[in-house]
């Protein structure tokens, strides 16, 4: 069952009065996000990730195409969709002079919470976000990490079935990012929430996402689990060797070896198929009387897939 079903979604931004400029943000994106999954949208800057997320969240109207979110059309039934989703951005910002409980109360009321139910919800969210100690601090005096936690708490105020996270760990210290990622993973686990997130951090995507879609120039270039993507893109496996003598430039000329690079005293050979080429390389090294001191075979990193796709 799909939480989001997008078909042929297109969006072009127009600006300027005398000199009309057009920027194609989405050029016919079709995508399905299964319920209860964490779905990652990856892509370089300006790829159209935030635009797509904003259309899903009813903040932006598409020029073309159809988007159904939790069974409702995002254009014709936007109100029904809005009740059941929420969003947090990495660069989120709230009214500067309000304190965390006041911000949560404001948005809670917009979702129909009031009285004791609202108070309990605010306390629960402050506690969950470890913001209780900062409840009397004005928003503009909170640190970036605390602001980010508050943004996530606000996004949970209506207990959404679908949560959009736009670069949720942007600009955070590594330890804060790790804790936030744990919290996101827990949300899916404990509440069976569907989460769609955009991120620049490949490790974050690999660690959190059940499925990933790569977007570039407003199109989905590839889609699948992290390992499926690595296989799909076929940028090759890596055989890393520590040799004595350390150099063997002729390796790059062997059949099936796509390229060889020297990295920290090792040679990393990208090959079309490690299973097939490993034995051939070892045999060649043995024939040349080169001693293999250490050997590692690994799949390419998601980051390498990203770089390949973003080219």
């Amino acid at each position, binding site marked *: 069952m799909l939480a989001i079903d997008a078909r042929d979604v297109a969006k072009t931004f127009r600006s300027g009065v005398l000199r009309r400029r057009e920027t194609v943000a989405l050029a016919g994106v079709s995508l399905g996000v299964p319920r209860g999954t964490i779905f990652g949208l990856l892509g370089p800057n300006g790829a159209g990730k935030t635009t797509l997320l904003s259309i899903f969240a009813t*903040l*932006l109207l598409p020029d073309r195409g159809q988007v159904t979110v939790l069974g409702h059309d995002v254009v014709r039934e936007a109100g029904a969709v809005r009740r059941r989703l929420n969003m947090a951005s990495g660069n989120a910002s709230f*009214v500067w002079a309000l304190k965390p409980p006041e911000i949560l109360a404001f948005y809670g*009321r*917009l979702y129909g919470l*009031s009285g004791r139910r609202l108070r309990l919800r605010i306390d629960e969210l402050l506690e969950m976000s470890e913001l209780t100690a900062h409840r009397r601090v004005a928003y503009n005096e909170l640190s970036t990490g605390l602001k980010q936690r508050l943004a996530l708490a606000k996004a949970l105020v209506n207990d959404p079935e679908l949560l959009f996270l736009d670069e949720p760990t942007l600009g955070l210290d590594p330890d804060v990012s790790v804790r936030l990622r744990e919290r996101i993973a827990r949300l899916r686990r404990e509440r069976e929430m569907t989460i769609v997130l955009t991120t620049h951090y490949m490790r974050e995507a690999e660690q959190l996402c059940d499925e990933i879609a790569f977007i570039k120039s407003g199109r989905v270039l590839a889609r699948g689990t992290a390992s499926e993507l690595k296989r799909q893109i076929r940028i090759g496996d890596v055989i890393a060797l520590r040799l004595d003598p350390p150099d063997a430039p002729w390796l790059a000329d062997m059949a099936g070896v796509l390229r060889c690079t020297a990295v920290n005293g090792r040679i990393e050979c990208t090959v079309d198929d490690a299973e097939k080429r490993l034995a051939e390389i070892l045999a060649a090294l043995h024939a040349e009387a080169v001693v293999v001191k250490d050997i590692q075979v690994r799949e390419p990193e998601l980051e390498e897939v990203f770089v390949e796709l973003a080219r």
Partner: protein
Amino acid sequence: MSWRAELVAISAFARRNLQMASRNVFLVFELLFWPVVGVVGIGLMARFLQLSPEATSFILIGQIAFSTVSICQLDVAYAVLYDVWSKSVKHQFLAPIGVRHLTAGAWLVGILRALVVFTLLAALGWWAFGFDALHAGVVPLAVFLMGCCLTAWSVSVIVCTLIMLFGAKAETAAWASVNFVLTLAGIYYSVAVLPTPVAALAAAIPLTYFLDAYRAYHGFPPEFARPILVGSVLAVLYVVLSHWAFVAAVRSARRSGLLLKLSE
């Protein structure tokens, strides 16, 4: 949406405006300094020119109306401007609310603040210049204040519409629009002195009629027939039209992406 949910959403904006007002040091200037300076300045000018008590009341009514409408309309404009200034516009439009909640909630606080300002200025006018706001009784005064607040509603909703169409650069309209409207509506003069095309514009402004009706109770012959009826019809018409314009502007901002740009 149930009635309860409607009221809760309206109360969200009313509470937020109150919270922000309570933390705004400029509130003292907005509520006290400028309105008081205005009334004192106009009252002293009337004394210097040796105006009659009726003429003094005439121009003081204009000055007090100016402060009352300004304060009331600013609250509604603030409900959007707080989010524009803090770049959080998208969060409130992500929620399942309509623009009616935003305008109604902020307008209620606007009315409250406008009543405080009016009471203060009326008391000052009475003490310093002998102006009696209750000269005609409570009902005409209440009708006049209703006219001020309804005019403030439509002016401020048009300001919100402009912000949704043109972004933060339209925020000066929040302060400029009320000056424009009051100038046309006859702040210190009868609209009869306006050039014909401008007088036609003045006749389209509800406040023109409410000022005319209220001043009539202070000894000035009315310019218009049935000013309260015409003023009320116009006021309601503009409330509906401005609401519709704001809804259309938010939809346009969702289409153009301005809603997101205001949040980045």
